[in-house]
Each structure stands twice: as structure tokens, then as C-alpha cells.
């Protein structure tokens, strides 16, 4: 397969989206066919390229010897790329139905399609400059999606998102410059790119810069205390929350942190340093903080947003262990959480779409009124809580055993944090499930008379995703084996 095909999954959707924005398609049906076509074609392209990977690097633009925009697929990029490519088409169909009652669909779908290309760019990036470029473009491309409804809250959320993201990127920029100066190359190399001759004597400086870079990229991964944009961004239409803030944008942040740690500074350089302590502490704190805040929030989408904050730090915690096992745990949770969280958001979206109810205490007896939706919600909840044999348990297991293996007291604290978070997760998710299936006495059945499941465009993705979360858990072995190979630097 020729190398130039690497640019297709990245550029094609950007162009398709841009064309849509320049010449808007007024007819809904035509627009849906156009968007569905573009997304499915691109998903196929991407999966083809990801599975039958062409050898070598595709350099799109060459600025200088050390700085170029180039694409290449390695193991980690493949995992992220496949995850995104599989989830995007499902979300597209879900959005067709959902956006019917939001309006301004042309603008939405234009940027939605463009974002698909940008995310593939993040996955396919061969070096830090390319990653940084697509990272910034990601912020810009998703901003209109967050601000979609253009009311006061949406604008505020968009502004907050922008400020946080750009600030984070600005600090990540500093890290990139240091890698440029002290590293032998900006290309992602497993084990790190730092040039020992240049770096020796400057360890503290480089570790400080790593911490800056971690928090910089970590903004998109909602690390405390820079997580504030994510709950506010839940005012966006649910497909945006689901895909972007459960899967694409936040996982891009995590992915960038993985690149920074394992493929940039290198975990041998960082292991045991104070920098590792700082970033691990931040991750551990976020794990508990996110879950605690989720429990306190009665607004369903915000609750799920805080849950995302917490779960992303599971991944970050695993990554900060800086061992191959830690990377395996992080990659597995990245995949499993994406599937589970997107399911939960889709359920929340279905509820909002059908009933306009946004708060947990309004969901009495929904188990009977919206059986498919609540069944999917329950399965996903059990997965997130970590009940074996569902997917969530396998990834938590991977993370915790990796933590125990390191023997670090801080890692043990992290394990404790995971358990506390599991408890809180059980409470804040089961609150919904129990209310839905066991409405309290004094509940008025008339309030759910009109409530019913949405149509197939929404329920089919829901069911597919629930099934996926169960299957992923059962069939985790081959996936874990692939992750282990990546963590050994072989893929």
C-alpha cells in the first residue's frame, strides 16, 4: 500500500467538512447522505490504512531538518485510530436523529466531519510538531461544536474551553521546544528522544519541563486543577459531549500525554524522579475528586462529565507509573472507557431528546418507560463500576496490578484511590439505575406516560455499544496481548 494513502483519512474529511461549510446543503436528507457517506468512506479508508499499514513516513511539509509535518502509524497510533474510526460512524447516525431538534445542522455537521479528519491526524502524527498542529486544530475545530446553541451558557462554555485548551497547548509548546533543543529528533521514538550528551546536567530542568508539558496536554485530559472546562462543556449537544468529550478530544489529550511520556521524554529518564511524583499525585487526586464531584451533581450530563474527569485520570495514573505494564493498563482503559462512556452519554442524550429531562431525580420508573435505553445504561454502568467479567474490570485490574508491581507507596495510594472511586462510581451510577427500576413510593405514574424509547437511529448505536462493552470484557485477552507488544516497543 503506498505511503501517500496515509494522508487520505486526515485530509478527506477536513475537505468534505470545509466544502459543506462553504456551500451549505439545505435539504436535510441530502445532507445526511453526504455526511454519512463522507464519514463511512473515511472510516473505511482509515481502517484500511490502519490494518494494512504502509511502511514508512509520509512527510507533508518540510520546514527544516528537524521540523516537519509527517504522518506514520505505529502501535499506539493504531489503537487510537481504530477506536476513533469505529466510533465515529455510530455517533454520526445517532446525531442525525438528535440534531433534528437542535437546529443549525449544516454548521454542526461541517465541523463534525472536519474534526474526524483532525483526530485522525492526531493519531497518525509522526512527530511532536505534527501532533501539536493537529492538537491546536482540534481545539479550533471543536469550538463551534461546543458553542453550538449560541446561548449565554454555550458561549461561556466555549470561551472557557478555548482558554483552557490554548493555555494548555501553550505550555505543551514549551515542552516541545525543549525536546527540539535537547532531543535528537522530534519524531516519536519508544523510550524517548532525549540526547544524553545534551541532556546530562540538565535533568531538573528537563523534568520541570516535562511536568509543564504533562499539565499542558493534561488540560485536554481534564487533570485537576485544569479540568474545569469539561463539566461546563456538557451544555453542548449530546453527540458532542459523547464523542468529543468522552472519546475524541479527551482521549487525544491522554494520547498526547502518552506520546510525551513514553515516546518523548522516555520513562527511563523520568522514573523515580520528583516529576513522576508530582504528576502521579495530580492523577490520584483527580481520580477521587472527579468521582466525588460526580456524586454531588444532580445534572445527569454533568455527572457523566465529572465521571470522565475521574476516569481519564485512571489512564493518566497508569501512564505515570512509567512501566510497560502501566502503559498496557492505560491503553486498555483508554479503549474500554471510551466505549462505556459513549454509551452512557448516548443514553443521557436519548433521555434529553425524548423528554427534555436533565436531572437524575426526574428519572423515576424510566426502566419501564425507556427499556432499551435504561438497559444499555445499566450494562454500561456495571462496566464502569468494574464488575467482572465486563470490560471496565479488566482495565482496572491491569492498572492496579501494574501499580502494585512498582512497589511505590504513592502507587499504592493510587490503588486506594481507584477503590474509593469505584465506590463513588457505584453510588452515582446506581442511583440512576435503582431510581429507574425501583421508583420510590409516592411516584406519579402519569409523569412517565409519554416517555418512550427513541427510534432506531438512536437505539441501534446504543445496543451495538452495550454489546461491545460486554464483548470487549470477555474477549480482552487478544487486545491486552497487542497492548503488551506496544508497551514492549515492538509495535
Amino acid at each position, binding site marked *: 500500500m503506498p505511503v501517500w494513502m496515509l494522508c487520505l483519512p486526515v485530509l478527506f474529511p477536513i475537505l468534505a467538512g470545509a466544502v459543506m461549510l462553504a456551500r451549505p446543503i439545505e435539504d436535510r436528507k441530502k445532507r445526511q447522505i453526504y455526511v454519512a457517506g463522507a464519514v463511512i468512506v473515511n472510516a473505511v479508508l482509515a481502517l484500511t490504512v490502519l490494518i494494512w499499514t504502509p511502511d514508512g513516513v509520509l512527510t507533508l*511539509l518540510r*520546514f*527544516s531538518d528537524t*521540523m516537519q*509535518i509527517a504522518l506514520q502509524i505505529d502501535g499506539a497510533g493504531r489503537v487510537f485510530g481504530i477506536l476513533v474510526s469505529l466510533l465515529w460512524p455510530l455517533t454520526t447516525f445517532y446525531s442525525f436523529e438528535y440534531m433534528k431538534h437542535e437546529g*443549525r445542522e449544516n454548521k454542526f455537521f461541517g465541523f463534525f466531519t472536519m474534526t474526524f479528519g483532525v483526530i485522525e491526524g492526531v493519531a497518525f502524527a509522526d512527530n511532536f*510538531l505534527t501532533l*501539536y*498542529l493537529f492538537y*491546536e*486544530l482540534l481545539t*479550533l475545530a471543536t*469550538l463551534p461544536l461546543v*458553542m453550538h446553541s*449560541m446561548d449565554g451558557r454555550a458561549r461561556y462554555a*466555549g*470561551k472557557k474551553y*478555548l*482558554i483552557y485548551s*490554548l*493555555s494548555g*497547548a*501553550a*505550555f505543551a*509548546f*514549551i515542552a516541545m*521546544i*525543549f525536546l*527540539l*533543543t535537547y532531543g535528537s529528533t522530534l519524531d516519536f521514538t519508544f523510550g524517548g528522544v532525549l540526547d544524553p550528551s545534551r541532556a546530562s546536567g540538565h535533568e531538573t*530542568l528537563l523534568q520541570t519541563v516535562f511536568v509543564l508539558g504533562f499539565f499542558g496536554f493534561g488540560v485536554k485530559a481534564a487533570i485537576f486543577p485544569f479540568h474545569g472546562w469539561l463539566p461546563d462543556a456538557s451544555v453542548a449537544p449530546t453527540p458532542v459531549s459523547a464523542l468529543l468529550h468522552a472519546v475524541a478530544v479527551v482521549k487525544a489529550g491522554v494520547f498526547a500525554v502518552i506520546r510525551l511520556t513514553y515516546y518523548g521524554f522516555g520513562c527511563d529518564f523520568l522514573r523515580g524522579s520528583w516529576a513522576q511524583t508530582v504528576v502521579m499525585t495530580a492523577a490520584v487526586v483527580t481520580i477521587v475528586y472527579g468521582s466525588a464531584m460526580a456524586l454531588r451533581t444532580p445534572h445527569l450530563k454533568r455527572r457523566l462529565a465529572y465521571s470522565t474527569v475521574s476516569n481519564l485520570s485512571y489512564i493518566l495514573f497508569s501512564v505515570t507509573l512509567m512501566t510497560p505494564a502501566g502503559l498496557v493498563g492505560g491503553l486498555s482503559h483508554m479503549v474500554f472507557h471510551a466505549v462505556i462512556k459513549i454509551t452512557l452519554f448516548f443514553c443521557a442524550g436519548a433521555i434529553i431528546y425524548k423528554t427534555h429531562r436533565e436531572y437524575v431525580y426526574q428519572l423515576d420508573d424510566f426502566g419501564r418507560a425507556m427499556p432499551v435505553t435504561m438497559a444499555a445504561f445499566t450494562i454500561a454502568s456495571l462496566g464502569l463500576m468494574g464488575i467482572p467479567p465486563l470490560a471496565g474490570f479488566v482495565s482496572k485490574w491491569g492498572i492496579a496490578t501494574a501499580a502494585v508491581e512498582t512497589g511505590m507507596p504513592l502507587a499504592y495510594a493510587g490503588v486506594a484511590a481507584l477503590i474509593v472511586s469505584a465506590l463513588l462510581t457505584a453510588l452515582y451510577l446506581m442511583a440512576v439505575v435503582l431510581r429507574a427500576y425501583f421508583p420510590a413510593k409516592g411516584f406519579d405514574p402519569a409523569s412517565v406516560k409519554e416517555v418512550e424509547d427513541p427510534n432506531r437511529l438512536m437505539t441501534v448505536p446504543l445496543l451495538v455499544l452495550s454489546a461491545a462493552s460486554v464483548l470487549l470484557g470477555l474477549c480482552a485477552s487478544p487486545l491486552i496481548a497487542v497492548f503488551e507488544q506496544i508497551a514492549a516497543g515492538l509495535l
Partner: protein
Amino acid sequence: MPFVYNFPFFSIFICMISGIVTPLLKNGRWAYRLSLFASGAGVLLSGVLLGRIGPANESFSFMMGHFPAPWGNELSVGPLEAVLATAVCLVMMMALLGGSRDIFEDVLPEKQKLYFIMMDEILAALLALTYTNDIFTAYVFIEISTIAACAIVMAKDASATLVATMRYLIMSLLGSGLVLIGIVLLYCITGHLLFPSLQQWVLELVATGQYTIPLTVVVGLIVLGLGIKSAMFPFHLWLPPAHGSATTASSSVLSGLVVKGYIILMIRLFYKVFTIEVIRELRVTNMIFLFGLAGMIIGSIGAMKEGHIKRMLAYSSVAQLGYVFMGIGLGTDIGIMAACFQILVHACTKPMLFSCASALSAGRHHNKKLHALRGAAYENKLAGIGFTVGALSMIGIPLFAGFAAKVFFASATMAQPVKMWMTLLTLALSTVLNALYYIPAVTVLWSRPAEGETGEKQPVHPAFAVSTVVFIAAVFFLGICYEPVVTLIQNGLALL
């Protein structure tokens, strides 16, 4: 002597002749065309020159009228000067094109010819400041450019403009005065006016330890003077009002070119007269560095508070100039290279932003308040795209010119631990602040307006279209293919 060597003189001469000939022309339109011709000729001549001496890495000095020093006048030309000259002429030409419609609307018909004379003079002055090898000539052209700049700011008849121009004039003349005193002192100490001779004497003075205090005072006065004129913090307060009410081409030329001329002169003085090592020893660079950092932040904060789009862009200029001063303040070759690159970048971006802003407001009764421009981009898509490109470049998104400049600034500080952290953190903060006012502006422009707020679709003005397209191309060129440009600048600095 190769014929190409005459080109610098020719380009200055053509501008001056155009200025002289203009009063004889029929009307403003013809004056405009002549000015375009002059700047176009400048582009061509400088471009050819660049093509000759750039790859060959030559530099030469040109004796005017074949009279040697100290009676005759000299020009000194190297790759750096050639690049800057080409860019200046190009930007002037495009600024005129982009703002042409507004000139003919804003300036009274009887004053239009005068306006273009002033433009020609500014171009001549800028070229002269770039090429000159003689400090007194430099002063002469500083004065010429000051007065011409005031004239073009004042060209649009409005009371606010007059007040702003007065302020500009006073500040500018103060700056010139300080420079003059510095030059006089320098002449007293060294007895020479030509750069090479001056450098010889300065080095000797430094080596023998004589006149150290006067030398320091000279440097301080010159830097201060030029700094006031180039809107260095804290002397930037004249810039925003001057822009706010001036006509588009004037704003573009003022912040895109005029202030740059003084900075270019300052850099050339640093290298050719005082030598960069002496400057560093005198700790002048540290002061410039701090002022640069402050300018970056204060400029952006000021821009955030503005609801008037041109004033916002003006404060943005203060911030972007801060980058340049920061680069100079680093005191190393790489730092000054980054500063020169930023000069080019800003020169290509800010005029475009001004002309697009003006074009966008044309359909809204020239109301330049941001909240009145909601959805204006849909009426003039090219202007909207131009503004967006400029904004993204200002913020520093990769692939745009501004990002390359940021990378150079960041890399340049790597060798200096103390300044490094200050630079990096301020760069980060500045990026965020820039985003905080540019993105809302872009968002407003592209949001669908409410009913009743729309203006009419604007016809595409050919001159404006050409200007915007060329600028967009320049932004991307500097963002992507910057390597040759950077090499030229580096070689040029080495030869200075």
C-alpha cells in the same frame, strides 16, 4: 561594479522622484497609480538585488555620487537589507492596494495627491533607513518619515484624528530629539558620521576605557528615542489612538512599516556602530528585553478591553512589537534573527488585518465596533477569511507565520537560563491573551447575525482582493517555507 549594485539607490530615488512629480499629476487617482508604480519598482529592484546577493552572500557599500567619506554619502547593502527592503516595498504596495478604496472615500479630493506624496516619502525614508551607512542621513530620513507619517495619520478629517496626530507628533519629535542629541554626542566623541569609522572609534574608546559614561548616555538616548518612535513599552500610548481614526492604508503603513523602520535602524546601529558585544556589556539589551516582555502583556491586555476593532488591532501591534523587542533584548544573533523574522511576519499580517477589518465594516455603515460586525464575514467572505488567517497567525497556530516566529523566539532563549523562563512563560501567556481577543472577534464575524442586522453583500474590490490574497500567501509562505528567509537573515546579520 555590477549594475545591480545601483538598485538600492534607484529604488530610493524613484520614490523621491515620484513624490516630486505627483503635484503635476491630474488627480489623486494618478498619484495613486504613481505610488503603486514606485513601490512596485521597489519590489522589483530589491527582489533582483536579493536574488543576486542573497545566494552569493555578498555585501557591498555604495558610494553616492562617487564621493568618498567623509564628504560623500554611503549605502551599505547585504542580504538582510535586501530582504527587508523587498518586504517593505511589497507590503507598502499591498497596503496601498488594500486600503485604496478607503483612501478615496476618507481623504478630501484636494488632499489626495498630498497623501500619496507622503506615502512615497515614507517609502523612501524606510528604504533609506534600511540601506544607509551614515548616521546623519539616518537622522534626516527619520525626520522625513516622522512628518510624513503624521500627515498620513491626519489625512482623514475628524477631530479625534487631529488630537491623536498631535500626540503622535509630539511623542515622535521627542523621540527624534533624543536621537539627535545622541548623534551629536557621538559625533563629538568620535568625530565621524559614517558607520564603519564610527565603529572603529567606538571600539577604541571602549578598549581604552575613555568616555564610558558619554558612550552609555549616547546608546541610551538613541535607544530611548527610537524606542519612543517604535512604540516600545512604556512609550506605546500614542499608537492606539493614532490608528483608531486613521484611514486603513495609514494604519497599515504605520504599524506595519513605519515603526519597523526605526527598529531596523536600531538593529543596524547595534551591529554596525556599537557592535553587539558592547551593547550587551552595557546591559541595554536587558532593559529592552524587559520592556519587550511588558509590551507583550500590556498590549494584549489593552486589546482585550477594546470593543473597537481597529483600536484592538492597534493594541495588538503593541503586543507584537513587544515580541520584536524581546528578541532584540536577548542580545544574541539568534535572538535578533528571530526579531527580524517577527518584523517580516508582523509586516505581512497587520496590514491585512486592518484592510480586512475595514472591508468588513464597509457594509455596516463603517461602524467599527465589534458587536456591530456580527456576521459581517458572510457579506465579504474574502475579508473574513483574511481576518481569520491573520488572527490565527497572531495567536500562533502551526502552519501560520506567527507560529514559526514563536518557535524561533523559544529556541533562541534556550542558551540563557534566566531569560529563558521569562521568555517562555511570557510567550505562553501572550498566546493565551492573543487568543482571548482574536477568537471572539473571529467568532463574532462568522456567527449568523440576527434578523435586521445584516448589511448588503459587498462587491469584491479587485485591488483589495489582490492585496488580501498576496498577504495570505505571504503568511503561509512565512509559516511553511521559512527556511530560505531565515538563512538569508542569519547570513545578513553575520555580514553586518
